[in-house]
């Protein structure tokens, strides 16, 4: 049975509807990420699951049991706050031990548990340090340790990495991922950073304005975004989005945009819904754009390099076709520079088409 079930969740703050209708499930040992821009209701949802906010309507079930009326103290859910909320007047040891003392765990057992948890999260060398003297990543570890020491049924994390500077963040992300595999508790993770979501989650729920736009595995979200918002949110750099229109007759189907035309006859049958001359948006990720100095692909289009962004082994090329700029993320080609003429082609298998009113047509 799923560890956590959220059904038809709705939350009003006065007249403001923070959460409109949210529902999802989390299985044991699974990590679900709630991803979305700030204000989309993801943190509110998390707080409702923890019991710190009361939903206007909807149900929360943990282990199959309805917990709507259960106070946060009794839910056995761990919550790691965005600012960690470490008790500044207590040592690391006492912070981790806090919940255990609430449960009146016998001293010897408590000590073992705290020490075990501390070594798991890597703080066993600073157990005596008072909370207010800890650095940010140390605080985060202690916050996590404090929650998992109680062997909660569910672990909730609210933007745990957003307070940490970029350099340390990479390291923490890796550690967090490792920790999650080791502990194996069902986890719900809230973030606005899509890279974090992609690396740490088993499944992602993309949220916007109090609703879940799409929920699925990382590859599902990445490869088959169902809405324009999801497609645009995931991926770095963002997907290229080009206005176009579909012109179809018995023989051919052509996508016509202001600056180029693309033949998609072989994909035409997969296009869903009405297709006659609708306003569409073509989506292609920069990774799926190929760049070549010679025209090896008969359907390749000519373009001019506008800007080169070197980011390591790969580079991002800003390419101009007519008045349109397309981004391509390919292995660096040092021979290219601003003004060079190149041929670009789109990987048709990775093409996305969206109705201008946000819905997807084909993969």
């Amino acid at each position, binding site marked *: 049975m799923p560890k956590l079930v959220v059904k038809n969740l709705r939350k009003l703050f006065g007249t403001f509807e923070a959460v409109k209708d949210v529902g999802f499930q989390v299985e044991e040992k699974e990590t679900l990420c709630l991803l979305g821009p700030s204000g989309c209701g993801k943190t509110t949802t998390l707080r409702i699951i923890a019991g*710190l906010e009361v939903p206007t309507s909807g149900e929360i079930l943990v282990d199959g049991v309805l917990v709507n009326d259960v106070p946060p*103290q*009794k839910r056995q859910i*761990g919550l790691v*706050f965005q600012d960690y909320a470490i008790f500044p*007047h207590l040592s690391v040891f006492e912070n981790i031990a806090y919940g255990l003392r609430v*449960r009146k765990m016998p001293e010897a057992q408590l000590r073992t548990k705290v020490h075990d948890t501390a070594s798991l999260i890597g703080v066993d060398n600073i157990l005596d340090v008072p909370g207010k003297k800890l650095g940010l990543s140390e605080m985060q570890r202690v916050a996590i340790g404090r*929650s998992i020491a109680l062997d909660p049924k569910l672990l909730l994390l609210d933007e745990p990495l957003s307070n940490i500077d970029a350099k340390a963040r990479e390291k923490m992300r890796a550690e967090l991922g490792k920790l999650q595999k080791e502990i194996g508790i069902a986890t719900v993770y809230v973030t606005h950073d899509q890279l974090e979501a992609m690396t740490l989650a088993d499944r992602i729920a993309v949220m916007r304005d109090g609703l879940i736009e799409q929920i699925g595995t990382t590859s599902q979200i990445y490869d088959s975004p169902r809405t324009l918002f999801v497609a645009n949110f995931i991926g770095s750099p963002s997907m290229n989005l080009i206005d176009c229109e579909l012109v179809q007759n018995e023989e051919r189907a052509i996508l016509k945009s202001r600056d180029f035309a693309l033949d998609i006859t072989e994909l035409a049958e997969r296009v869903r819904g009405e297709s006659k001359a609708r306003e569409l948006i073509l989506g292609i990720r920069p990774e799926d754009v190929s760049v070549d100095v010679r025209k090896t692909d008969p359907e390749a289009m000519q373009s001019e390099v506008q800007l080169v962004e070197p980011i390591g082994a790969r580079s991002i090329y800003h390419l101009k076709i007519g008045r349109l700029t397309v981004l391509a993320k390919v292995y660096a080609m040092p021979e290219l520079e601003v003004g060079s003429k190149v041929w670009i082609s789109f990987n048709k298998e990775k093409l996305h088409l969206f109705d201008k009113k946000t819905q997807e047509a084909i993969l």
Partner: protein
Amino acid sequence: MKRAPRLTQWIRKTETFKKLSTLPLNFVLNFVLIVPFAIMIFLSFTTWEPLSGYDWWHAPVAGVPRFIEAFGDARLLWAFIRTTVFVAVVLPLEFLLGLGMALLFLGDFRGKRAFTSVLMYPMMMPWVVVGLGFYLMFQYYGPVNLLLLKPMFGEGGMVDWFTNAVLAFGAVMIADIWQWTPLMFLIIYAGLAAVPRRLIEAAQVLGASSARIVATVHLPLIKPLLVVALIIRGLEAFKVFDIVYIMTRGGPGVNSTEVISLYVYNLSIVYHNTSYACAVSLLIMVATALVTRLAIRPLEVKVE
């Protein structure tokens, strides 16, 4: 390098301002405090009194007879003991009641602002009116007797508060507690309300009950504030004068409820024992300065 004339002018202007700004202050302080202070030091080494027959600035320096007299003065000792007892009773009670009230007011409830406003008023009333109010309350035919003790213990339960030294002192203490508990309440409440909400939520998620959270999160975090409040109130309580004067005048009898301030007042104004009053005052000042120094030490450290 030659300084720009405008800059020099500016520096001169601000320098003058700097000196001028504290000039009136110095004047007033010198006049009202330092001159009498100097007189006090001088007179305490004499044996002058208004009835001595000569002007005080002609008084011969007699050395330390007044100070020796002070150390042998039983009435002084008793005044000191009484004042200490007063503070020792009043301070903890004000603290505990203030703490209780703050905990009671933690969180929201209907009419909170109105109730809080009501609670503030005792602090703003003139001390003599507080004394007057409780003087009237504790009269033999007053509400404490008639509305509280008589219904509980019958006619025999009524007590003459002001003819018994202990009871009179108790009445004074109750008046002080009534007036100053709101101050403790205010300080403690401000401290409790400043505890970050996140910490409280974190403790809740970890399973702690409200009572436990108050004990393990709120109280430890406001400890330095509590120390400050106690020190401030404690020092003030030592100086009590107005309510004692109004309610008992030091009586019943001559000095059964006499606190230090009252004794010094009596010496100075009622008995006209000027040089002795000066000596005693000087001793009190020295003692106060020392105690203040000691009391400030924990405050200085806390400022870090």
